[in-house]
């Protein structure tokens, strides 16, 4: 029997392209794109990263919404294979952590954009602290519930991100100190560190066959 995976992937890619086109069209017509384009570049970058995290989180939550759906979506799933213990719960927790990460990235620039500055920013800061505490608690629970492959991947991604960021930060800081490049804001650095960690985590997960 011919392998149906490439054809299925093409069909899924076509669905994805069509959905993306409709979303982009709606965003353009509603004026959202023009509104976002007025943001500083660093805020646009963090918003783009937040949208990516939001999409990944929603995808995880949809995949974990039922065992039948998870079985259909999981690669290399064999008929009759039992689901891993707690796999759906673990996936839901990861999805929730991604959504919280997206919210943490979205709130500060949007709050500034909506005029929450000065004293008006204090309730926003308290909200961010609460979200951060919740995400930290959830991340700790995810780590506790992980098996050794997940923990190894987490450690590997953390180490690789640390070295990459330290290398990049030192390089940029040295050049900025010499007056050869511009200083960058803390928000830009935070966005870059988040993007690098996400990219490295995906590479590590692919190398370890965790999408199998």
């Amino acid at each position, binding site marked *: 029997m011919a392998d149906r995976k490439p054809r299925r992937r093409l069909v899924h890619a076509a669905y994805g392209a069509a959905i993306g086109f409709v979303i982009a069209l709606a965003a353009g017509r509603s004026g959202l794109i023009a509104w976002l384009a007025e943001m500083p570049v660093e805020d646009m970058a963090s918003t783009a990263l937040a949208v990516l995290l939001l999409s990944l989180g929603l995808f995880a939550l949809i995949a974990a919404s039922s065992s039948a759906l998870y079985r259909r979506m999981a690669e*290399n799933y*064999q008929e*009759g*294979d*039992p*689901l*891993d*213990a707690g*796999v759906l719960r673990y996936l839901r927790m990861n999805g929730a952590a991604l959504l919280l990460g997206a919210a943490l990235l979205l709130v500060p620039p949007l709050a500034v954009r909506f005029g929450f500055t000065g004293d008006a920013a204090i309730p926003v800061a308290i909200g961010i602290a609460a979200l951060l505490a919740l995400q930290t608690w959830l991340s700790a629970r995810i780590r506790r519930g992980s*098996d*050794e*492959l*997940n923990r*190894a991947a987490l450690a590997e991604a953390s180490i690789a991100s640390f070295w990459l960021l330290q290398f990049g930060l030192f390089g940029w800081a040295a050049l900025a100190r010499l007056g050869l490049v511009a200083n960058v804001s803390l928000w830009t650095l935070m966005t870059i560190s988040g993007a690098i960690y996400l990219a490295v985590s995906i590479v590590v997960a692919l*190398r*370890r*066959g*965790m999408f*199998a």
Partner: protein
Amino acid sequence: MKNRLRVLRAEANLSQGDLAGLLGVSRQTINAVETDKYDPSLPLAMRLSKIFGVPIDAIFLDDWTPPELPHG
């Protein structure tokens, strides 16, 4: 590290999910070990050895040979 896990699992008529359930790890971990993408911890290797009733070096294949010890 190369290993015979897939063969042993097939001989025992266990799916990846079955074996993962017995060991308390995820199916992805079993898949990653079978495809040489992850070397398991020593405790997990020992549990595999107990499940299949074979020594660890009958599961994991290492072609390293120790250098000859100097004779005193």
